[in-house]
């Protein structure tokens, strides 16, 4: 299981023009392996969010190459990018971003409904996935009725429900206390193994570094070094 599923080379991205131009990414090169939990860490503004936005086909780079699962993602057409995100990527956001009007089950079913799955089937799959994250008892609850840690579990279920090949987590533990953060990361690791998914976590929460397989340290738009986490540390 050491296949490279994400390969970026000399990836660059800037914002603004002239004197206001800011280099968000400066020649970022990184390989991520299949079924690996890679953390991208660094201070605010170091470019890690820009980097995962490009990997998630949400943003186009200015230069360099970015290959995911053998696809040259930046050069995909608009519709192909949408399909790519729809089928292969799952997102977990810092602010959870659950749709407040929908029940937890409906929130988790959204990626399947977007894919065109029949509602009954989608709701069934959503219930199963919520069971995987320990939320089977709250299917009909609204996001406003559960805690932050539970919301993040639901967000993980939503990211996972359509069996994506890559889950991108943006600061998944920043809004959670220590215990909830650890619980969420344990869940992510477990699901990563059972679902054979690759997980990218953007964070500056050093309490969860031990859950990574490798950690890419970024600063000023560059990857400074890549650290392999020892088994003792990740245990």
């Amino acid at each position: 299981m050491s296949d490279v599923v994400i390969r970026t080379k000399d990836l660059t991205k800037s914002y603004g023009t002239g004197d206001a131009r800011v280099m968000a990414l400066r020649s970022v090169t990184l390989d991520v392996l299949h079924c690996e939990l890679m953390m991208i860490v660094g201070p605010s503004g170091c470019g890690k969010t820009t980097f995962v936005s490009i990997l998630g086909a949400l943003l186009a780079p200015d230069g360099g190459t970015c290959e995911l699962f053998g696809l040259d993602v930046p050069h995909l057409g608009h519709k192909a990018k949408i399909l790519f995100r729809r089928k292969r990527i799952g997102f977990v956001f810092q602010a959870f971003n659950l749709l407040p009007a929908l029940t937890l089950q409906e929130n988790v079913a959204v990626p399947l409904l977007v894919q065109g799955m029949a509602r009954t089937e989608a709701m069934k799959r959503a219930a199963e996935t919520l069971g995987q994250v320990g939320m089977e008892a709250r299917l009909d609850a609204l996001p406003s009725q559960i805690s932050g840690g539970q919301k993040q579990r639901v967000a993980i279920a939503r990211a996972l429900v359509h069996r994506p090949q890559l889950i991108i987590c943006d600061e998944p533990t920043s809004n959670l206390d220590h215990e909830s953060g650890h619980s969420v990361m344990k869940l992510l690791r477990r699901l990563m193994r059972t679902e054979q998914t690759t997980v990218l976590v953007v964070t500056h929460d050093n309490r969860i570094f031990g859950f990574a397989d490798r950690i890419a340290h970024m600063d000023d738009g560059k990857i400074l070094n890549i650290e392999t986490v020892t088994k003792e540390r990740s245990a």
Partner: protein
Amino acid sequence: MYRIALKMLRGDRAKFLGLLFGIAFTAFLVTFALSYFAGFMTRGFALVSENLSADVWVMDPAVHSTEMTIDMSETVLQQVRSVKGVAYAVPLSLHDIDARFADGHFQRVQLIGIDDATLAGTPLPPDGSSVSLLRVPDAVFADAGGTKGKLRSPRYEKDHWPHDGAHLDAPLRDLSAGDELQLNDRRALVTAVTHTLPRFPPRPLLYTTLSNVKRILPSESRYITFVMVAAQPGVAPQTLAKRIAETTGFRARTAEQFKADTVRWYLVNSEDVGDMTAMLILAMTVGFGVTGIMLYMFTYENLKQYAVLKAIGASDRMLLAMIFVQASVSALLGAFVGIAACAFTGWGIEVSGLDYPFRFMWFGPLTGILGVLVVSLTAAAVSVRPVLKLEPGIVFSEH
């Protein structure tokens, strides 16, 4: 996804109810305005409506309404009666005249001259008296014609036709049978007070026989404003109208055509209608504006949720469909509530007996629905722009 769109719509109950209220209010305003307008127009052709037996109306070729008329000579009656298919034809005469009341005050009224022989077109007195009361010498039937307090007579006998000048401050009461008036210095005796259809513009009416009109207005050379024609059984009014026009050279219109002509005439010529329309357009513009802005704001405030859906893989087409479903459902629900409220208001006016020009016709609710639907969909179309331009990457903007 449509179900999700509707759940998003209902998600924020206060916002949703505010939106529905805005749309319902606009639909109510539009429907009520048009019903009010229809009510006025209906009063405009009240003369035609109250003469149900007239299948065809014959008039001078230059006349296009019941409001602006010119008289024809009496030979028109014989000409019309000689046309094949005419069962009977009776004259009707309209003249504006000042009526002087017993205390000396005066009032502009419409004098309506009725065929002496048949009394066709005479309103029935509400107390069950016979229309033949119009055959009493100098008789007139008085009718408020949609006005209030304009047909008044002195309460006390001492104020009736006083020899020491007008008693303009005398206490008054409503005109009643037995009161006398002066029309062009001729005596007129009120033999009944009727309650026929109100007019637009409102004006007091005095019904009398055509011979009495001639007595009151002896200097007029022409007296017949309209000839009301009943068709023989089996003869279509339209066919008869065409035949009369071709044969006599006068303008002949079926009752329905004449009503439509009158409405058209008011729309083009009446300054009152122009003022009313301007006021209604202003009110509707405000209503439409509020609806549009509220819908736009609704979509705009949900941008983050659309960004999440976009990141998850929802296509632009899906998001467009969701927004348009939200707009259409809001518009239809709001329109239903608004129109129901308008119908209820109309019913209230009807049962309370208020003299208010309100007529709930098909085009009122239809325009109400179409109006809010068009505005809602336009607002949706405007609000999709930021959704389409939305970068799904903003979902990472919590940093």
